[in-house]
Every structure is written in C-alpha cells, then in structure tokens.
C-alpha cells in the first residue's frame, strides 16, 4: 500500500482533567518532548491522549479518578490532521452521561460503531509501570499485545470486548442452579467464535512482527532483536487446523468444562488465557530473566518494530506515547531510540524530567516544559530546543 500521510496532533484541549483545566495546546509538532519535575503534569498529558482511543488509557485508571479534584466532569478534545484532511476527536463525561461511562465524539457525532475510532487513530504507549510487565501476571502482557494488534486491526477491541462479554455471561449463567443448556451452548458458541477471531489476530501480528524482526534485525548496535511468542492453546490449534475446526473444538471443551468452570466461577479456556513472551532473538534469553534495562530495551525494540511494520503495511504508524522512555537505558540505547523516533512517520510524544537527554532530537522535536502552578493547575511552555 502507498504511504499515507501521518495522522498528526494539531490541537489538544483539556477541561477538568487531572491537573489540567481550560488548557489548550496548539501545534505540538510531530515529535514533542515534554519535560518537567515530578508531578508537573507530563504523564497526565500523555494519558489524556491515550484516552482518545477506546480502553482505560495508559494508567489503566478508573473513570472516577480522571476528573480534576476527583469530582465533576472532564473532557479531552483533539484535532488531528491527516494530509489535507483532518478530524476532531473528543471524549469525556457530561451531565447526561450514564455513571461509569464516557462518551466519544468523532467530528462532533457519536461514532457509528465501536470500531469507528480505531479506524482513524491508534496509539501505543510505554510507561514506567510497564517496566514490571515481565514480572507481573499475564494480564498486562495481553493488554500490551492487544494494543499492538488494535493498531493493525481496528475491529480487534470489539472482538475482545465481545469475547469477554460472552464469557462473563456464561460465568453468570453457570452460577445459576439449573442453567438453560441451549442458552449456555449459544454463549459458548459466541465465546468460541470471538476467541478464535481474537487469537487469529494476535497470532497474525506476532508472526508478522517476528518475520519482520528476522528479516531486518536492525543494526548491530541498535536494540536487541526480540522474538515474540504467543502462549495460547487456541493459537497452537490454529497452527494446524482451520479456524472453523478450532471454533468447534473450543465449543466442545467449553461444554465439557461447565462443571469445573461453575465451581471456579471462571472459564478455563478462552482468549483470556493467552500470554505473551519476549526473548532476545540472538541469545534466546527470556525477557523475564533479563535486567530492567534489557527488558526496557526489548520492549522499545518491539514497539519500534511494530511501528515500522505498520508503516510498511498500512502506510501509517500509531501515535507513540512514551512516558520516561530514557530511564534505565544506557547512553547507547538512548541515542538509538531517539534516532529511530526522529525517523518515525508518526506522532511521537516523549516525557522526561530533564531536556538534556533529548538533545539529539534538537532540530527535529519541539520542546515543552510542564509546570504546576500554586493553584495546582498544570501549564505547558515552549522552550525552543534542548537547553
């Protein structure tokens, strides 16, 4: 496919969101570096952008945590350009929003279907919390993988949500004394169908990324070439059987495990059991056993490979939100990362405590400094270049 012009952030407005109110930011540039002391509002800004795509944003926050001061309504509104075109995207709550929900507006209108936003904008992020991605449970790794898949397949989030809804419904029904068996079978059919779709998308992305990482391992002094491995019995089945056969198989093992699942209150089989492993393609070392710095380098290597894969496949890379990307990286990896970002055909936002580390981006990036005023409100000030 021919390269499409990048989707670039032109304007961001925040109202009643975290440490921001009445905030407007115009033309942040394709690569923006936001520096400032702890608590100045850098991550809040990245989080606001991460909430423009469906999900819980880069902090995984509950909606109640988002309004300024913990109460009231909040809004994030952005204008993006896409070549000659552009679109407005906003999210937030209003007096008429149901509790526990937020609404989206795409060009001022409610999106026509759940995938409509993902078709226009995708975002991938790395946060300092993700430094623990390899040592914690599989949920975080699965979410990380799904975020990468979603950038390639706009319908993926809908499939994941449908799978989880069918699974929760089945769990609920299994909790009843004499559940309707035909109803259970119908839910298991839904669950199997969506689980296979979700797994096929995850598996497709993992194999495309591995192929790309193998063909183009990067220069020797770049990031360690990583290998991704999806651990999931459904994916293993898909290696050898057509999707419809895997669906039938999953439906039958779900039906067989009703009694066990009813006792456990959860499903033993399904797309929610998948896990993602990263390893160093050269040494074969598993990320979980690597040092924090190596883990970070592997994660960044995966994110950069993903972005260049997408740029190649769809002509468009996701917006990258990298919160404190330089922490834990040695000087060499820092330079490699910044060079790669400078060449990236997409919107990139970076944060750090000091601008010095970002000096190699002088002339490429726009630099901003975040401050928190005595009223607790964050502001942003353009600083020209790295000082």
């Amino acid at each position, binding site marked *: 496919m021919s390269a499409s012009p990048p989707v670039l952030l032109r304007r961001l407005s925040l109202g009643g969101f975290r440490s921001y109110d009445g905030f407007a930011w115009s033309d942040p540039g394709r690569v923006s570096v936001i520096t400032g002391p702890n608590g100045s509002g850098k991550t809040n800004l990245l989080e606001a952008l991460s909430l423009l795509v469906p999900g819980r944003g880069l902090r995984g926050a509950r909606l109640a945590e988002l309004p300024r001061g913990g109460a009231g309504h909040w809004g994030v509104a952005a204008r993006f350009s896409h070549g000659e075109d552009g679109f407005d995207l906003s999210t937030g709550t209003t*007096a*008429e929003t149901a509790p526990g929900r937020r609404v989206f507006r795409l060009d001022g209108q409610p999106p*026509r*279907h*759940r*995938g409509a936003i993902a078709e226009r904008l995708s975002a991938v992020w790395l946060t300092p919390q993700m430094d623990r991605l390899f040592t914690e449970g599989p949920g975080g790794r699965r979410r990380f993988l799904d975020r990468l898949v979603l950038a390639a397949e706009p*319908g993926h989030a*809908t*499939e994941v949500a*449908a799978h989880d*809804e*069918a699974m*929760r*419904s*089945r769990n*609920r*029904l299994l909790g009843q004394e004499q559940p*309707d068996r*035909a*109803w259970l*079978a*119908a*839910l298991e*059919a*839904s669950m199997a*169908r*969506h689980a296979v779709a979700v797994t096929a998308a995850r598996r497709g992305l993992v194999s495309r990324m591995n192929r790309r990482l193998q063909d183009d391992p990067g220069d020797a002094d770049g990031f360690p070439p990583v290998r991704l491995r999806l651990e999931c019995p459904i994916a293993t089945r898909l290696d050898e059987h057509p999707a419809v056969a895997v669906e039938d198989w999953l439906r039958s093992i779900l039906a067989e495990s009703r009694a066990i699942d009813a006792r456990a209150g959860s499903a033993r089989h399904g797309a929610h059991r998948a896990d993602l492993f990263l390893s160093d393609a050269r040494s074969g070392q598993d990320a979980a056993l690597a040092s924090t710095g190596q883990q970070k380098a592997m994660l960044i290597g995966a994110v950069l490979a993903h972005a260049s894969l997408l740029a190649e496949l769809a002509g468009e890379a996701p917006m990258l939100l990298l919160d404190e990307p330089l922490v834990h990286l040695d000087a060499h990896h820092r330079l490699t990362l910044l060079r790669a970002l400078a060449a990236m055909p997409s919107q990139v936002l970076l944060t750090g405590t000091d601008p010095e580390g970002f000096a190699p981006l002088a002339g490429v990036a726009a630099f901003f400094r975040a401050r928190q005023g005595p009223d607790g409100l964050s502001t942003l000030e353009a600083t020209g270049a790295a000082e």
Partner: protein
Amino acid sequence: MGGPEIERLIELLSRLPGLGPRSARRAALTLLRQPQTRLLPLADAMQRAGQSVRTCSRCGNLDSRDPCSICTDDHRDGSVICVVEGVGDLWALERAAVHRGLYHVLGGTLSALAGIGPEDLNLRPLLSRLEEGGVREVILALGATVDGATTAHWLADRLQPFGVTVSRVAQGVPMGGALDVLDDGTLAAALMARRAG
C-alpha cells in the same frame, strides 16, 4: 421557574430517549409558545395513541388493530417470518421495504448480565404460529451484539424441531450494531445476504 405544570412537563419530556434536561426545556418551550398548533394537537395525538395502540397478540408489533395491519395484510408472504428484537427494528425493516413477509417481535434478547432469560422473551406466540403450519422460513434479524448473536443461536436451536429453514442476517451489520440505526441500504444488503442459521 414557571409553576409545577411546566416543571412536570419538562421532567416527563426529559425521560424520553435522546432528550436530556436541556433539550427537554427547549422542547417544552416550543410547545408552550404555540399551544394551539403544537401543544394541544400533540396532547390529543398522545391520548388517542394511548387509548388505541395495542401490542399485536400474534407478532408483538404495535398497532391500533389486533392482529396488526401487517399480520392481516393478504399481500404479504405468510410463509416467511422475520424475528426482530424490538418494534423499532420492525419499523427500520419496513422503512427499507425489503421484507415482504411477516414479523415476530421478541421484545428483547437473552442477557445473563442484565438478568433477561428465555421466560422474559415473547417466544410462545411464535412457537404457536409455527405449530399452526404454513411457515417455511424464519429469518433471525437480531443485532450483531453478543446478546443478539447468542439469542439467534439459542432461537435457532429452539426452532429446529419445527423443520423450518432458519437463516440469519449477515453482511453489513457491524459488530455491536443495532438494527434500527442502520441505513436502509445496509439493512437491505444484510437481509439479502442472510445465511442458514
């Protein structure tokens, strides 16, 4: 603001779908400014509808006649029944004018999370119609939501003993899409491309 009558009117209007407190105030103001041309005719229409509109005992449609004017229309194909979730979906299909058979309004979809079970659905009259005979095909035109798909699957299972062809609307209904918000062309394509359930 303007007395309890106005407050009551605004409150009732604000409970309507698509209207919040602010738009309800605007609507109330429009009505009250032109009582002869807007408010009273509306009140009269509502009263008449309230007195005469019933749920059709055969298909679940809303009409001032029972059985409804669709069920009693001789020009329609009585051998094909299209099952929809709500009357809004029936209206959407009628607007698109692509289905010339009869309908059955289920009155909801199975939802374990919302506590809606088989006994809450308007199923019995549909089974009776199939028992009467003369029905060749049942089209399940339920939304492409998890609950819609689950209900279609469950219903296909329940209808199996009757030996009728059970098909489902297919293409063009986006995941998570409700039928009554689709455009007519999409709906027509979905109905044409139905597949065996």
